[in-house]
Structures are given as C-alpha cells and as structure tokens.
C-alpha cells in the first residue's frame, strides 16, 4: 500500500478510446478515471494462477456450497416428511419433538455454510485491491446553483406567485379545510368514554335492574361466607351476564377473609367513607383487583405481611389499611367494594365502588373523601 496524498496527487490523463491498441485494463481504468477513482493497490490474491494453495481454496469454497445444498435438501425433506403433528405431551423420544429443532438446524446450517462460502470467496480468492474515489462532498457548483435559482425564479414568475397574492391566499385557505377533510374520517374512531372508567359491573342500576349484584366465582358459582377459609382469599366477579369476562375489566375483586386480629386493625384504620357504608361484612373485605397504577391485577397476596403486590410494577398495598399503597409507583388505595350477605346467604355488593377503580386518568374526579384518613 503506497501512501496517498491529495496534494501530491497527479491527475491521470484521459486516454483516447478509439485507439485500437488499448488493452481491456486501460479501457477499464479510463472508466475509473471518469468516476474520479484511482487504483492505489491491485494484485491477484495468488501471484501464480493454478497453484496448490489456490486450488485448495477453491475446493474449500466449493465444498461449502455443496454442503450448504445438502443441508437445504435435508431441510426440505424434513419439512415434508418428518412427522410434525402435535399429539399431546410428547417426550424427547417422539419424533415430532424434534421437528422444529431439525428445521432450525438444517436451514441454519445451510445458510451459514453458503454464507461462509461466499465470504471465503470474497476474502481469499478476490484480488487484493484498494482504490480511492473523490467524495465530491458539499453542495453543487456555483454554476449549478445559479442555474437552479434562475429556473425556480422563472417558475415563480410564470405562476405569478408574487404578483397574485390573492390566489396564494385563496389556495391556502382552500387547502386547509381539505387537509382537515382528509383526517376527519379518523373521527370514526372517536368514542365518548362516558362512564366506562367510573361505572363497573357492580352497578346494580345499570346491570342488574336495581337488584344488588351478587358475588360469584369464575365458574358462575355464587359465593357464601363459608366458602372462604380464615386467612384465605378468592377472586370474585359480579354475578351478571358475562360478569367474569373481559367485558367488565374493572370489576374483578379480591375477597379476603381476614383473621380476627387483622380485621380489628382494619376496622380501626377504615376510611370514613367506608365506615359510613359499613363496607366490611364480618371479617370479610373485598378490594378491587385492578391496580391503581396502570391496571394490572394486583393479585399476589402475602398473608404474612398482609400486603397485596402487583407483579407488573411492584406496587404494594396494605390489606389492613384500606389497601393503601405502601411501596412502588401506585398512588391510590385499591377501592373497597362494600359487601353484605343477603337473605339467602349469598354475598352481595351493596353498591358500586365508591371511587373509580383502576388506573388514574386525566379527568378522574378527585373526591375529598379519598384523602381522608
């Protein structure tokens, strides 16, 4: 490699292409010259063609291509004929277990071998070369700029943009509503959020003809107090149509049967708004399961520490203190569902949540009761 310096750089002379004595290389070099390219270094990888070393390299590359083809064939064969249907829990002895790994291994190997072949060809057989090309960085020449400027000015002049300001303004005034018209159909997506963030499936008026909504389990079984052991907890849903489905995403509630001592502590701590409606029933308390941070189910119940933990962002709520947040990014307590037991012995919700459950939102009403201790 010879050191190359711009200042010491002598422009190669143009050659006469009509000269019949020009070699192919000279014609080629003239092409390079026209693209402002100069060869600094160019030599064949093997000084003598056909040597042992070159033949060896050819064999290696050829072998890589052939093996690649072999594995590609194996891929196609396996794809078609290897047993693939899933037939229940299979062990490693069953051939279908190996279907996907075999596809990966064969296709991967085939591609990798071909890749190494091409790369070896490029790195070990192509001539060693180093060229230098002028970059022509920066803008166009002053001449080109002047011509372009004159052309654009001519266009502006022809259209009379300067002489006809009224037309320009009228066009802009017309185009603005057109632009609006283009995006207006997106308005079809708009929906009034209405009460979707504040009213849940526990709302008796909206979903149960005014009858208090009963509590049920996922399978639809109504809930009686004796179905939860002391210290136990259950995920429950409003006993209405589709009450346990994603149609009521803010309805799921965690019903906890506290131990007597814990229930005592909770009763002492109870927020006035929950005292007013007598939200507990015996030692049973029902908290919204939807985290007040961004809405994951806060469903990991630590009986020892009486905490509820949301596995998404680790907000933690104190079960014996109105499920107030004690750690993590959540700022609000999990709303309590006021519960009671009806004449037939089933749990009911005496009303919907007193504050909107789930994550906070911009126009969430800030009720003073919430902040009362």
């Amino acid at each position, binding site marked *: 490699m010879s050191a190359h310096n711009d200042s010491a750089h002598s422009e190669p002379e143009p050659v006469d292409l009509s000269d019949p004595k020009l070699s192919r290389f000279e014609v080629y070099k003239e*092409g390079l010259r026209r693209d402002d390219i100069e060869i600094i270094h160019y030599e064949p990888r093997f000084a003598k063609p056909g040597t042992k070393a070159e033949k060896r390299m050819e064999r290696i590359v050829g072998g890589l291509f052939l093996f690649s083809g072999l594995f590609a064939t194996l891929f196609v064969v396996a*794809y078609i004929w290897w047993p693939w249907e899933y037939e229940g829990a299979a062990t490693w002895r069953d051939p279908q277990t190996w279907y*996907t790994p075999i596809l990966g291994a064969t296709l991967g190997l085939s591609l990798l071998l071909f890749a190494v072949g091409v790369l070896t060809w490029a790195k070990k057989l192509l001539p060693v070369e180093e060229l230098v*090309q002028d970059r022509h960085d920066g803008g166009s020449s002053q001449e080109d700029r002047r011509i372009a400027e004159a052309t654009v000015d001519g266009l502006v002049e022809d259209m009379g943009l300067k002489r006809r300001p009224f037309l320009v303004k009228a066009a802009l005034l017309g185009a603005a509503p057109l632009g609006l018209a283009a995006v207006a159909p997106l308005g079809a997506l708009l929906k009034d*959020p209405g009460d979707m963030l504040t009213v849940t499936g526990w709302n008796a008026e909206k979903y149960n003809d005014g009858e208090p909504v009963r509590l049920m389990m996922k399978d639809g079984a109504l809930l009686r107090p004796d179905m939860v052991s002391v210290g136990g907890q259950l995920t429950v849903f409003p006993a209405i149509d589709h009450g346990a489905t994603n149609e009521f995403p*803010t309805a799921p509630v965690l019903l906890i049967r506290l131990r007597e001592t814990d229930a005592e502590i909770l009763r002492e701590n109870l927020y006035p708004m929950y005292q007013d409606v007598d939200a507990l029933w015996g030692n049973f308390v029902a908290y919204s399961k939807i985290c007040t941070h961004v*809405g994951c189910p806060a469903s990991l119940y630590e009986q020892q520490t009486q905490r509820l933990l949301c*596995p998404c962002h680790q907000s933690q709520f104190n079960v014996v203190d109105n499920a107030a947040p004690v750690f993590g990014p959540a700022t609000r307590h999990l709303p309590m569902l006021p519960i009671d037991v009806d004449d037939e012995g089933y749990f009911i919700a005496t009303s919907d949540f007193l504050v909107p459950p789930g994550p906070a939102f*911009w126009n969430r009403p800030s009720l003073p009761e919430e902040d009362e201790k």
Partner: protein
Amino acid sequence: MKRRKGSSDSLLTKAGGELDDRFKLAGPARVLLNKVFPDHWSFLLGEIALFSFILLLLSGTFLALFFEPSMAHVTYEGAYVPLQGIEMTKAYESALDISFEVRGGLFMRQMHHWATLLFMASILVHMLRIFFTGAFRAPRETNWMIGILLFWVGFFEGFFGYSLPDDGLSGTGLRIMEGMTQSVPFIGPWASAALFGGQFPGTSVISMIYIIHVFIFPLILLALITVHVGLVFAQKHTQWPGPGRTEHNVVGFRMFPNYVMKQVGFMLFIWGVIGAMAGLFQINPIWLFGPYEVSVVSSASQPDFYVMYLDGLIRLFPAWELRIPPYFTLPAVFWPAIAGMGLSVLLPLVYPALERRFTKDRGHHNLLQRPRDTPARTSLGVMVVVFWIIGVISGGNDVFAQAFHISLNAMTWAGRIGIVVLPIIAYYVTYRICLGLQQHDREVLAHGLETGILMRDPNGRFYEVHQPLAEPDEHGHTELEYSGWVVPKKMNRVGALEPTDKGFFKSIEEPAENGGAERRDEIESGRK
C-alpha cells in the same frame, strides 16, 4: 453490434447491448459497479437490521396467511390439550394453531420473534456506533434522524406484534398501554376509548393494531429504510482516518464484486443465525400463558427487551401524582411513560443540532472520530447507556430479586438511586478513561512501544527498552503526530512474535515464489 470472435462472453455483450439500447444503462451501471466503499467491521452493524427486516417481511407474510386478527369468542378445541375447552379469542386460537397445527408454523413464529429482537438490538448497537464515532455530524444529520425514527417505529411495530396473539402476556402489555394512554392530559380517556373502541380491552383493538402491524408500519419502515440506505449511498459512507484518507476522498474497495459479495455472505450469515435460533431456541411460548383475562397475571411478566427500559422507568418512578381538585389528575405514570418516551424520541433527534450549537462546529465531516478523542460526547453517550441499562435491569427487577434472593424493594430503591447517581459517575469515569487513553496514545507516539525488555545501566538504574515507531529524523527524534487512528500498543501489532508458519495440523506456508507472506523474525532488540 459486432460479435467478437472467439469471445466466451459474447452472449453477455449482446444482452448488455440489447438492454442498453432500451434503458441507456452503460453509464449509470459503470458508476454503480465502480463505486468505492470504505471497509471496517463496525460499518456492518446497520446491515444486520436490514437483513433481519427482510426476514421479518418474509416470515411475517407466512404468519399472516394463518393468523386471524379477531376478538370474537371461541372455545378452543385444537391440538394443545391443556387449553381444550377454554374460552378465548379467535386471535389467540389462530396463534395457537400456527404453533401446533400449521406445518412449520412454530418455526416461523419463532423466526419472526427472534428476527425482531435482532432487528431492534442491531439498530441500537448501530446507533451507538454512529453516535460514538461522530458519524451523525454534518452532512448526515438527516440520516441520523431517520435512524432514530426507524428505531421508534420498530419499537411500536414490535410492541404491536407481540400484542397480537392476545395471550395472557400480550393482554397485560396492552393493559399497561391503556393505563399510560389514560394518563395523558386532556385527551387521555378519549385516546384510550378511540384505541380500544370504548372500554379496554373491547373487541376491536386486535384488528386495529393488526392493520398497523402488517401494513402501515411495515410500509413506513420500508420507506424510511430505503431513504436511509439511499442517503448513505448518495452521501458516501464515512471512513476512519488513516494513511491517504482525507475528508474529500473515500478509500476502500469497489462495490462489485468485493462489497456485494461480502454483503451477500453477511446477509446469509445473519439469516443462518436467525434460522438456527428459530428452530433451536424457544421464544414466547404463548400456549403457557393462556388467553388474556383482566384478572389474571403472573410474576415475571416482562416485555421484550427493547420495551423493558420504559417498563423499568415506570417501576422506578416514585408515586408522585399531581391532583388538581376537584376535576383533574396527572397520574404518576405520565412522567416516565409519556414524558419519558417523548424525551427519548426528542433528545436523540435534536442531538446533532445541539452538538453543532455547543461546539460551534459547522463544517462537514467525513472522517470518523475515535471515542477517546471526543471525551465529552463519549461520556454523555456512556451516561445514557448506563441510564438505559439500569432501566432495563429495573424492568426485570422482580426476576433479578427472585434469582439472586434480593429483596424486591431493595432492588427498586437501588434502581431509583442508581439511575440518578450512576450516570453521573459514569460520565466522570468515562471522561477520565478517554483522557488517559489519549495520553497513552501520545506517549507511545513520542517514546515508542514497551518491549518488556528490562536493561540495567552501569549506574545500576533499571529501564525498559522502548521500540520507537518511526525512523529517527536528523535530530534523532522519533516522535510521531497523532493521526486520529489506532496507535499500536504492543510489539505484536508491529509484527513481532507473529507465527513464523501458518497452518493448524500441518504447515500451509505458501512457497515464496507464490507471493507468500513475508517471513517474520523474532525480535532481536536488546539481545547481545
């Protein structure tokens, strides 16, 4: 057209002539064939993203043949026994069918997912390379901005992609997105209702993100990638400084055959790696997560890695909710999620302009800088990287807490403190390292290489023999100028101690007449 006698490529000449008659190709084709490309391994990181993208289009098309973006309810009666009889959406059912009842479907699903991870990872690494070497400077600011947009379109494309199967994990991701959307001042609840067609999860979100995922965003990505690569081509690639390399030239090899062959080889290599991973390494086993139910989640619910830093920020951000009673609330999640993401888009976009303003450097730059030579920028970059890594780790802090038996709350606090303190420390440390490396470069250029040979002079003083890098000039000085490129730091780098022979089992040393490698000798300096 005259046929050249006895020429084996006369057919090619004829075909070329026919084509040129119609499309006038000879001139442009020559320019293309001869175009010179600079060579360095670090210039190929962006290509990994490009090749992954091609594979994403192919595997995605396969998946689209079988996937049904519908939230209609069905009862699963497919091959996977544990889920039989369970209510789910058609989207989840068809994703399960792709995994169990489409020939090679699981392979394709895993290929699509692995290719996405590689796509996003290589964009990140490529972005770091561009940043730390100053390749974003004029005249390439536009391409830097296009690159940032590519990352963010890819980010949402990926997020929407793993939301589509409607399994337990993807529903949780959408739920978090809903919580984030609702926190936006003024428009939050309306935006959320528009996104989910009313209340979350609704019945329309899958089909909406499906059309975005398979049509709108791929189209945007394709357009941006085309412009991105086109600009690299038109503006010519940057190059490292070195002998003969200036701001006004490109030193390297020709596009054909050298560059194109290496690119094709590299492309097949990337595809081979993804193909092998698709078959051998399981990813996103949706059948284990079950259908999405709002009341069900498990611990260790992590997004894909490129979303994790955002999730980490959301976990770390303190419970600071702004209440404007009686009507308005600015939820805590607004700051890390909406403001944080907004800054993550905006700051990188304007960084080239900021740097221009602060360094008052308005020139064009085609030579790259070594990170050590721009300590302030390098330290700033490392600062951001450290911030990001802490975000990613915090995005999985429950997994770390469990795996290493650390208190979860301790992890959170460590993240909260760390994300403020460690980037500052990282800035200082990086700055000092850069200066140290600079100084060492100068030292070697001035005094030469350490040879490891200790001498003792007649006074009893010990000293190390240094190997100067240049011939002494008339004053006996051997000091060299720093040229912005690697300074050899070890004797091996200047040819000492090279193996005298090549070959693994047996010698393959080429005979000298075949232009074989020049013989290296053991260094003799310091010997009697």
